[in-house]
């Protein structure tokens, strides 16, 4: 879908909600090099959200949506959880079907889109919480990777079941006392990035959202590699400030405190040689295109 598909019938213009009119007038569909810096100046793909004030998941959601390389041809698949409270506000097609089946839905979806649009890129991006990705949906998460399904899986890791009220998940830290872990969690945080790497992901990253530049770079890598090479996985720390007893303004510091060199969210990337070569090649082409552009001396302001 190009931006020119996004129109409002003139007779209905005055009754359309203001955010929809704004979306039509100034969405970033089709904008080259769209990124997190568009937030605030262009129409965002997410309007309001119904998460808690100061929830890091909300800002992570904004960065992710702002960084999608091709939102006009991207379909997202969610799962049950706090993210499913945001998806109804998101201006790309998105699917919620059941809890935990997101990677199975995305497998069928990606194949259908590939079949129906053989000459176009239709990106599929899964965004689900740690319960959906690592507990109830683990088999489908892994099997999609084993099968080399070409889409990106994003896990918003808040280290617990937030939406149901703070129960232990596979990504909770060992020893943490939570609901359903009244004596503290008995086993280690599941090492999902390593599992992803061993399960066949071409690109894996674990990070927080304290640095929007990094989120943008990682997200673009993941979507472009998934499109061309194979499955990719991003795990993002989105602490549940409510359940860990923090204030609304403390989310950012919580993320910073969790990403020191020896901390569990220290930035790590696994990338296959094939994916590395693909990114290098893409960089080369971009540089060459930029050089060619300077060479033709296009007048300023003309794209």
């Amino acid at each position, binding site marked *: 879908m190009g931006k020119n598909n996004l129109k409002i019938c003139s007779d209905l213009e005055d009754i359309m909600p203001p955010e929809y009119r704004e979306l039509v007038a100034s969405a970033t569909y089709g904008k080259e090099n769209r990124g997190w810096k568009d937030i605030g100046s262009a129409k965002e793909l997410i309007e309001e959200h119904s998460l808690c004030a100061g929830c890091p998941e909300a800002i992570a959601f904004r960065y992710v949506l702002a960084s999608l390389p091709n939102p006009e041809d991207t*379909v997202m698949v969610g799962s049950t959880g706090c993210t499913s409270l945001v998806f109804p*506000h998101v201006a790309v*097609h*998105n699917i919620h079907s059941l809890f935990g089946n997101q990677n199975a839905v995305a497998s069928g*979806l990606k*194949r*259908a*889109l590939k079949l129906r649009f053989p000459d176009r890129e239709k990106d599929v991006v899964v965004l689900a919480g740690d319960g959906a990705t690592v507990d109830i949906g683990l088999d489908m998460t892994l099997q999609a990777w084993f099968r080399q399904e070409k889409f990106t899986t994003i896990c918003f890791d808040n280290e617990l079941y937030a939406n149901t009220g703070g129960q232990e998940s596979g990504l909770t830290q060992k020893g943490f006392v939570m609901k359903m872990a009244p004596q503290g969690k008995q086993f280690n945080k599941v090492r999902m990035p390593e599992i992803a790497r061993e399960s066949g992901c071409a690109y894996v990253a674990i990070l927080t959202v304290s640095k929007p530049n990094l989120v943008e770079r990682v997200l673009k890598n993941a979507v472009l590699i998934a499109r061309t090479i194979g499955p990719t996985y991003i795990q993002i720390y989105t602490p549940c400030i409510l359940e860990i007893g923090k204030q609304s303004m403390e989310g950012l510091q919580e993320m910073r405190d969790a990403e020191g060199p020896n901390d569990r969210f220290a930035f790590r990337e696994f990338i296959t040689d094939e994916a590395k070569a693909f990114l290098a090649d893409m960089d080369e082409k971009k540089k060459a295109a930029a050089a060619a552009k300077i060479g033709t001396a296009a007048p300023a302001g003309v794209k």
Partner: protein
Amino acid sequence: MAGNNNRSIGAVNKKGQKIVEPEYLFFEAPRQEFFMTGSEIVKEAIRRASVDISVAYPITPQSEAAALVGELWTEGYVGDYFRGENEFAVMSQCAGASFGGARVFTTTSGPGTLRAFENFPMWSGARLPILINVMVRGVNSPLNIQPDTLEMAFLLDTGMLIWHAETAQELFDMLLKGFIVAEQPDVHLPIAVCIDGFFVSHTKEMVSLTGTDICLPHYDPYRSPVPCMDMEAPPMRMMRDPFVMKSNYISYATHASWQQEVRGAVERARKYSVRYLGGMIEEENSDADILIVSSGTAVAQGREAVRLLAEEGIKVGIVRIKSIRPFPTEELRQATKNARLIFVPEFNVSGWMAREIKSTIDRNHRVIAGPHVAGGMTMPPEIIAEEIKKVMHLRKKELVHG
């Protein structure tokens, strides 16, 4: 429609099949006789069905049919095909493909149906016109792979359309017609075409098939009453507040009205089912005092019992139910209005079909829930005949003493 093929009526697909009007394929196209198993019939129906994607998983007795559909993919008749990791995942993969605008076919049996179960009401609620061929089998435990229709009872209130084929011939026709009914814009619901495992899937019979040179038109996802998730239409912010977990009147009313709409869509399938199946029921001597009313191969056994009883001078009629959702309410009331006794033979322990019939017709003390057998036991016509004679005798006594 994106893609590189001309998909209009009269066009020829990459396998050299001419795309024809469904009515032509169903009712007019020349047919030829073959001797085939039910599983082979699935392959032949899907060969002619312009299916985009099929996902498979092994479970007896549907494994052979599911594998044969894989051969069709290799031959180029099906767009994409793979083995999923379990039935819950398979039905979710089917959902994803259907959300993306594909025509989707899959198969399952017994425990697989139950493992997949959370998906079925989701399919209906999301208005995904997936066709699933359910080859019914006993539900564990103890372990059992034999035919048993219990799993169909679980499907009754999912909002899916449910048809029950008695023979391989009917399976062929229902598989093709099922797509066309399920995909009608005013229906647009998933459909389960059920057969009795082994009895139909693994036995051979004469079947009359249309040529391999014609096929159904493709599914057009832009006739769907809900948006296709392919980003070809502008996305809508569906709501300013997500309904999920909002405890307010609007959210309750939205959910309630959508569930009613799904049931409404099941009702709207009635006219198409009548047209394509030639009626929701099939009657043989339904003016008789005594009727056998059921679906699937239980009716085939009933037909033999009718023959046995006729030799003894007892006249029994048959009403066979072809569409279970929507249920042939009016048809059954009419067909049974003069019957004194209505027997419902079933291949399951619970007698759910008898319950359905009892809740539909008046004077339902006439309904005898049985005989039913379960767990793969066969139902010889003799036990149906015996049951009928036993009840006739008892009721006569009741009249004498009553």
